[in-house]
């Protein structure tokens, strides 16, 4: 299991379209993906659940990935969450 606190990048944070893109990426991996903000954990493969976090740009979230392809998945998903131009 890989777990790390990250600062949400991108101009708008995890709004609908970035969230939809995140889910699309997450679903490519077998690993379980979870996100947490302010102590609330949600399924990282659910767009509705992610939207309930209301993770604006600059907010701190925890990304947790566990499973057979966790390393690759973590790398890709971390990049998605923190990159500034998406």
């Amino acid at each position, binding site marked *: 299991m890989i777990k790390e606190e990250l600062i949400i990048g991108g*101009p708008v944070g995890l709004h*609908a*379209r970035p969230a939809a893109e995140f889910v699309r990426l997450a679903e490519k991996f077998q690993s379980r993906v979870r996100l947490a903000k*302010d102590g*609330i954990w949600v399924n990282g493969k659910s*767009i509705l*659940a992610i939207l309930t976090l209301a993770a604006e740009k600059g907010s701190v979230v925890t990304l947790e990935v566990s499973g057979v392809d966790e390393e690759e998945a973590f790398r890709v998903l971390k990049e998605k969450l923190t990159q500034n131009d998406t």
Partner: protein
Amino acid sequence: MIHKSVDSRMRSKPKEKIVRAIPVSAGFAQGKVFVYRLYLPEVEERALLPDEVAKEIERFKKGIKITNEDLRQLRDRVKKEMGRDFADFIDVQLAVLNDQEVLKKTEQYISERLRNAEFAYTQTLKQISAGVSRTGLSFFRERFVDIADVSARVLSVLRGEELPSIHTLEPGSIIVAQDLPPSETALLDPKKVAGVVLEAGGKTSHTAIMAKAKEIPAVVGAQGITREVDDGDDVLVDGYRGIVFINPTPSRLTTYKSEIERYRAHRASLKALVEEEAVTLDGKVIDLSANVEFLIEAKTARQNGARGVGLFRTEYLYLAKRRPPTEEEQYQVFRDVAEMFKPYPVIIRTFDLGGDKVIPGYSEANPFLGWRAIRLCLDDPVLFKGQLRAILRASQHGNVKVMFPMIATIEELRRAKLLLEEAKKELRKDGKGFNEQMEVGVMIETPSAALLAQQLARECNFLSIGSNDLTQYTLAVDRGNKLVAKLFDHLHPAVLQLIKKTIDAAHQQGVWVGMCGEFGADPLGIILLLGMGIDEISVVPGMIPEAKSIIRSVDTTVARDVASQAVELSTALEVERLLHRELHRRFSKLAQSLFAVEARKR
């Protein structure tokens, strides 16, 4: 999803109520209100026997599958009719529909609590949505329109009912809503929908764009109106001035009746001109083209007889995605438009970001004098070259030209052209085709560019005047600021002198010159431009027929005389007076048919 109010409030004497709004699509509409409400519907709760569970889950899965097919079909249609960016909205709806948490929990709910699919599904949605933190509420509510629309679709499929939708309306209805989901807006049918009134939205919301493209009168920003009206109420929508009259009085209707009739007759006479050329009385042909941002606008422009796109805006590609679009994404959009207008030209303006088109997450003290348009692009060669490569690649699919916004110095043009050459070199290396002779133009939007028009014209293929910024920078007026907006007037003699100087300079250097600002959509402005010798005029798609009818009733020798008088005057008011006087004296045929001028004077 639609809620028909069952218990219409009883009102003995309906009183007229006036609601001010923002006009986004011109025209008038009168009809019965249809209130479009979004909510998660109440569904019946039904207990299952344990041996019914498997069948119920099957039924749920099938419902999701059918809804997927429906939405995908809709997405393809929207992509074709409106462009890729609008299809993205439906991609979000698809993501909501296929949310695995929702699907898994619904199935669990069915099997563990022995409840029917409809009930299990709505309970699951409610349960997940309930997790929204207080601070996240507004963030989440933005998406509510998508969630509610998706769930309504699923429920209607499960119940085997026709999806209640604005597409099944009584003809002639006026839709009043907080907001409309993209899936509804995409396919607005002018035969059924007479008008649209929204509480939400700005001038560039997807609903505004669609309504305009389909010529459905519409206003947005009508705050609180969904609480003021009920299904079946009479309303009158004035899409010219942005007014909604609820229960209009008989005298109001009489006043408007004659106006609506004149408007209809006027539109009909314009329609007859679609195939005609934009040629002046004395035979000068003007390239009348359109300002376009979305594919759907390009289609309207084409239908209205535009001979090209005089200004293709690219900021939306950036702002809608809230990130820089990739080269490929841009190339596809540019290619679509180029192919649509072939052999007519499509002039693509490189990113005019900054100023009022703010990049998310970036702000500065004085944006209009700051890091915007070409300045920003020259500082970000990766972004800029990506766009130039996309434009170049599109140039092999039609008659594509590029133009640079906000040029203030010759160096900026030279540096931009240098990057264009680099982009060409890269494409050659990558073996990607483009038109080696693609024309390069400069937008004249700053007083310095107008004063240096001669020098700029020497180093490019055409000039295009952006009168809005040119006016703002010449008069030092921000028209977004209510306190000084009244000082903004593109008929100001200082602006006229710069426009004339630009046109003369271009012609001295043997290049053509166009106008793509609102000056070209002002009937009085068109007369001046024709008098100054403009070659091309580019206006919003809906204005093409009107502009054409004006061009066709002007003699350029007369216009030249009027224009040379105008530039000598001292104030904007004097210019306007002169033009109105001359309009009635020397262009009387035109004066009679100028609906737009009269509507604006009120």
